[in-house]
């Protein structure tokens, strides 16, 4: 028990939790925007892979780090456009197209990686974002180093979450977006285009997913390797449900999830961890996500028009 306590009061644990939460927050916000507009985006897993790859490759080829982030954002928006065109105006199955996008983006990243680096055996490293301590705030005990000595991309993740909440609930655009996911006919009656709103939402959302992926290569691991996203995209879809489609709750969910993840990594090092198979600890994030879905199942307020294609003039 003392070991658990030692972990919980250590700075490194809380710093790790914030760090692990950052890519999840970015990608979860991306999925949340898509779903609030009425589009499920199962392309998330592959788009994160492609974002991780394109961000890393740009920097590896000599671009500055922020240009890498931009490259990830644009590539994510490209896949978002593809997904949106197929499922919004053409009304194709959002499940099937999303999974197709995941397969295309994942294999596309691997194909391009092999083309760019045919002979490499160990993944080459780049110089990632360095921690950026905020003056004064980072001197606070415990929360200072945990919260305010992170990299710029972590601050960006929290800023994005605040911006998403602000736009969704405080602007006419956000109102129109939410209405597109609840009652598209009403949006059309206001003279707005449901198709345009949904396509825009999916593009922006997919861009954020890709930046979430790029966090892993540009801020966390400094190189790109296969299977590095490892189901994080699916976990983000669970986090959207857990957060009841609200940005604030989704961020809390991501933080809670990340804290558990940071905890299981540290518990593996304790005498308790030595007695249990390590795979049990690695399973924890996935099992936790399923548990979160079960807990929220009765209370979830699903956007009414989620996965319902809108065809003008059809009732």
């Amino acid at each position, binding site marked *: 028990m003392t070991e658990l306590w030692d972990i919980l009061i250590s700075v490194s644990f809380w710093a790790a939790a914030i760090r692990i939460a950052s890519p999840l927050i970015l990608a979860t916000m991306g999925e949340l925007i898509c779903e609030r507009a009425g589009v499920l985006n199962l392309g998330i897993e592959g788009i994160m892979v492609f974002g991780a790859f394109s961000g890393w490759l740009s920097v590896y080829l000599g671009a500055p780090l922020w240009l890498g982030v931009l490259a990830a954002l644009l590539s994510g928006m490209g896949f978002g456009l593809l997904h949106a065109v*197929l499922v919004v105006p*053409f009304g194709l199955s959002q*499940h099937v197209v999303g999974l*197709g996008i995941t*397969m295309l983006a994942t294999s596309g990243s691997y*194909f391009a990686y092999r083309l760019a680096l045919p002979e490499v055996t160990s993944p080459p490293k780049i110089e990632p974002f360095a921690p950026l301590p905020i003056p004064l705030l980072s001197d606070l005990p415990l929360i200072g180093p945990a919260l305010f000595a992170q990299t710029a991309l972590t601050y960006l993740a929290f800023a994005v979450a605040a911006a998403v909440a602000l736009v969704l609930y405080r602007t006419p655009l956000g109102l129109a977006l939410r209405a597109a996911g609840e009652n598209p006919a009403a949006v059309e009656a206001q003279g707005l285009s449901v198709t345009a709103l949904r396509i825009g939402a999916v593009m922006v959302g997919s861009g954020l997913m890709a930046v979430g992926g790029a966090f892993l290569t540009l801020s966390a691991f400094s190189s790109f390797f296969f299977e590095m996203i490892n*189901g994080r995209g699916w976990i983000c879809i669970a986090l959207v449900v857990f957060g009841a489609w609200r940005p604030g709750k989704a961020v809390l969910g991501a933080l809670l999830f990340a804290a558990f993840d940071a905890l299981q990594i540290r518990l593996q090092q304790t005498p308790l961890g030595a007695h249990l*198979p390590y*795979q049990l600890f690695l399973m924890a994030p996935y*099992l936790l996500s399923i548990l979160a879905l079960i807990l929220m199942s009765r209370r979830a307020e699903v956007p009414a028009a989620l996965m319902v294609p809108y065809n003008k003039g059809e009732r």
Partner: protein
Amino acid sequence: MRLEAIPAPALSRRIGLPVLALVATVVVASVLARVAGADPFATLGLIVTGAFGSKFAALETLNRATPLIFTGLAVAVAFRAKLWNIGAEAQLYAGAIVAVLLGTGALAAPWVLPVSMLVAMLAGALVLLGPVMLKTRLGVDEVVTTLLLNFVMLLFVSYLLEGPLKDPMGMGWPKSPALVKEARLPRIATGLRLHWGFALALIAALGVWLIQARTTLGFEMRAVGANPAAARFAGMPVNGVLVKTALLSGGLAALAGWSEVAGLKGHLSSDLSPGFGYTGIIVAMLALLHPLGVVVSALFVAAIFVGSDSMSRAAGVPTYIADMLLATALLFMVLALALTRYRVVWK
């Protein structure tokens, strides 16, 4: 733009558009080959000869198609009832684990094959039953739960292979002991590198087709998939039908893993499946969810994989071109299918 339903699509439209989708995929393949610095026609030729160019290659393609027929059927059965089983990968490994548990000496000769096959199907069915019960009882979306269980199952397999099922003679490799001879699926003909799993897959496709076309359950599955509210109104036990669909789908996916272990590999390792469960989705969609079509599309998909492996060694185009082509084919095909039933009206 908006879509306008076509009441009775012409035959030319119903055949022409899917063909166009395949042509478009070939065009994408040529572009990718060119991007990789290879000659497009030579690359396509190498893929075809790599898949069918020799007796060895053709048998390799049939062997690769075997698990894909099973996972393709599993997905087709589930998707037909709008049950989104994306967890065929996990169910496949459940079947593979049973093949090892019962096939390494636990059961005696005459019974081991049929018993282990049935238990494998049961294990796969149970793996899918969990998410489906969560869906029918609590309304938990099965897409995410089945996806997440794939990762849990892979870790479980890794645990088994480093712990209880580790081969003591494996030189430290995480693999299971080899199956006893009686637990192995024999080859269809001596000297022919093709095992009975392939024949079993064909039988399974026929069986699923009979269930769908000739039984009440098959009708109910389609009705639930087409319109659950209407099916419920017509007095069908919608949740019961979903559970039965899940049992069938999970069982079929498990056979993929079971036949890979019992027929091809003879032991279990954690690289048993290079994503057969996920590829099953492509197989099923290219087959328009038709069980007999699954056989054809599994052969097509297997040919792309086997052919690309061989082409990659010769022409240096990364083998991931296969996955890209299949994802592209999937997207083109669903678009083509929509355009057979709807016409685009610009205004």
